[in-house]
């Protein structure tokens, strides 16, 4: 079970925005293509299958937190030592 805990599940804010945009684009594109193809061959079932393929692709590409969605982590400020009153930090400061 430790293996699963080591898996990264985080997406940064920019990655979340990209994931949502990408999933919308993929599903819309497959839907439009499926509609056109289904109309050409007059089979609405093919439209539904193509849309489903787009759903699967979008799920594979945007649901797991791939490394491409973790490229812009938030730049947190360094903790300011003066405001920090906890003992452990004080101790580490003393050691330095």
């Amino acid at each position, binding site marked *: 079970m430790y293996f699963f805990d080591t898996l990264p*599940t985080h*997406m940064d804010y920019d990655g*979340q*925005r990209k*994931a*949502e945009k990408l*999933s*919308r684009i993929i*599903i*819309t594109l497959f*839907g439009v293509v*499926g*509609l056109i193809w*289904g*109309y050409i061959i*007059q*089979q*609405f079932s093919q*439209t*539904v299958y193509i*849309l*489903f393929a*787009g*759903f699967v692709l*979008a*799920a594979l590409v*945007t*649901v*797991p*937190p791939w490394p491409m969605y973790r490229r812009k982590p938030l730049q947190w400020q360094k903790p300011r030592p003066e405001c920090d009153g906890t003992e452990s930090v004080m101790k580490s400061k003393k050691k330095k």
Partner: protein
Amino acid sequence: MHSVLTRGNAILAYSLSVLAVLTFVCFISTVFIDYRTNATMNTVKVVVKNVADYSASREKNDLGFLTFDLQTDLTHLFNWNVKQLFLYLTAEYSTPNNQLNQVVLWDKIIQRGENAVLDFKNMNTKYYFWDDGNGLRGNQNVTLTLSWNIIPNAGLLPSIFALGSHAFRFPVEYTTARV
């Protein structure tokens, strides 16, 4: 979009919304199509008997027997929003009892991909042609019409009347022999 579950939920919801839109486009693309077409029909043998209707009042009612020819080509009615056609052949006539009588004599389901070019000769009816009294013998104007329901993927369930009908008359004497 911060976790796997919320992203999965979002794309599933969006896919279903897109599916609803596509289905609506499919409905809109076929709702204005004129599904009427020509059908020719003819009666071959027409007799009428006077027998007890045990399924109803046990009184003696008129029972018509007929065989018919039917030719029509429904292939062009099928499109991406038609799953099957339900054809039915109706006899319409008026009697002293009722202004309008409608009796379904025969029906057929044609699914997508099946042969939709119909050419029947001397077909028997599937259902009994009962009158609710004695209105069939000598009836001078009985009209056969063909109609169909279109069973769609999405949208309306229209009932279409074929162009073309056939009027015939029943004999003035009851037939007593077995038919």
